[in-house]
């Protein structure tokens, strides 16, 4: 599903974010991406979204070299990749329902699809009762559920999560992780960048550790840090 082939990324001013990274993530996997700040996690996710293009090497998603994708095809790629962030990125002037529906409307999905898909996904994340609330009226955990609903409503092949629990307390975090696990069980590949040692240790999923842009460790049922 995702393949990095000798990928290097250098930003302006000779800042090396990734160095000769090669790895493969299969369809349906759940992968934790760990490492200290500046280790290249964000660049890894940006390359997948084609926010950035690799300086060297190839990044393949579903068999296609996305570095060679024409600019006008990028939206098509992003429709297949859902994305969740630490700061949720919800639109405060829209209700929960409208935030989720927005993701379908702007890619031109017809009304009847929106009307059936949005309630379904809100049910999945457990927010049916809050459909008409505004994001500011929700707790952090609920807001992150809305953001997950929005990322998943189009049934993408891949779900990327960048520190999705970074702003949440431990109890709420558990709920979010359960939700991501459920989404993973539907066959969606999930890649989650995180600093949260406890969840990585508790979930026992594949762990990819980056350090200064290089692959430090790729462990099938890993924990956060070696020796922890």
């Amino acid at each position, binding site marked *: 599903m995702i393949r990095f082939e000798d990928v290097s990324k250098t930003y302006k001013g000779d800042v090396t974010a990734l160095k000769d990274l090669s790895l493969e993530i299969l369809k349906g996997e759940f992968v934790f991406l760990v490492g200290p700040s500046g280790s290249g996690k964000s660049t890894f996710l940006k390359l997948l979204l084609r926010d950035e293009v690799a300086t060297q090497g190839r990044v393949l998603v579903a068999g296609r070299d996305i570095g060679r994708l024409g600019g*006008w095809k990028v939206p098509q790629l*992003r429709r297949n990749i859902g*994305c969740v962030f630490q700061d949720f*990125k919800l*639109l405060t002037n829209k209700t929960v329902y409208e935030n989720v529906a*927005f993701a379908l409307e*702007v890619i*031109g999905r017809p009304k009847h699809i929106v009307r059936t898909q949005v309630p379904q996904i809100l049910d999945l994340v457990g927010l049916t009762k809050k459909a008409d609330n505004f994001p500011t009226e929700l707790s952090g955990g609920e807001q992150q559920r809305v953001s997950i609903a929005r990322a998943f409503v189009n049934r993408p092949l891949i779900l990327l999560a960048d520190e999705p629990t970074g702003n949440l307390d431990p109890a709420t975090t558990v709920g979010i992780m359960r939700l991501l696990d459920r989404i993973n069980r539907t066959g969606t590949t999930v890649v989650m960048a995180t600093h949260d040692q406890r969840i990585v240790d508790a979930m026992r999923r594949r762990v990819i550790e980056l350090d200064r842009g290089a692959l430090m460790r790729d462990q099938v049922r890993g924990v956060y840090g070696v020796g922890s």
Partner: protein
Amino acid sequence: MSRLAYFVRETLISLRRNLLMTIAGIITVAISLFLFGGILLVSATVDHGTQQWKHGIELEIFMKTDATPKAVADIEAELKADTQVKSYTHLTKADAYAIFKKDFKDQPALVESTKPSDLPESFRVAPLKAELTAPLALKYKGQLNVDTVITAAQQIKRLLTATRWIRLAFISMASVLLASSLFLIVNTIRLATFARRREIEVMKLVGASNWFVRVPFMAEGLVQGAIGAGFAFGLVWTLKIIIANLLSNQHTLLSTFRVTSADAFGIGILVLIIGAAIGVIGSIVGLRRFLEA
């Protein structure tokens, strides 16, 4: 269909959010296009007039005011015998006074103090061929008792020079204003994209096509340009009516000048197209920064 509804809704929301900038953009588009359309309309009017002159070029021979009837009759006889003259009309002192009264009707004191006898008699002459105007003028200018000869060409040339300069001045002014209206629209669109940067971020994230993101902003620019141009259209039409009224009261040299609805309509359409183009170009420039990102 739902997509169209989406575009309409988003465009209206954005126009309302930036109401002041929107109005500023509309006004400058309207003023600049009115200047542009107005001068085109005046030019068209003058063109009609000069076209008339090409067919029946006239020159006017003014006698000295103290010329005796005998002297006037001599000139008339000479004109009648002249093979180069196709036709002529004799304007008596009374005719001259009638024209004078009309030309200076807003200065009654002047009209009051002027008697018909103060004015010269004259002959309006149509030569056989246009090329004969100059030699004819020369010939009669030298005659005893002839004060001066005015050829249509002289007057028209002066008018044409004047309109050429006026046209140049107006078109430069209109260009400057058009540039500033473009700038205002670019700015409005930038503000609009800034106000909606979070929405745009989410749209790009979930894979909305670039056109989908762009269309509401382009529609916003288009609406501004088109509304401004609509006002300009109305003003050009008003100008046409004013010119038509002015001309209908004239029986002098300007009597050959005409303004037609077809002129005004054609110019109006041109103004609308330019307005719409400015709106769209403005939004494309305004969106450029966003497109690069």
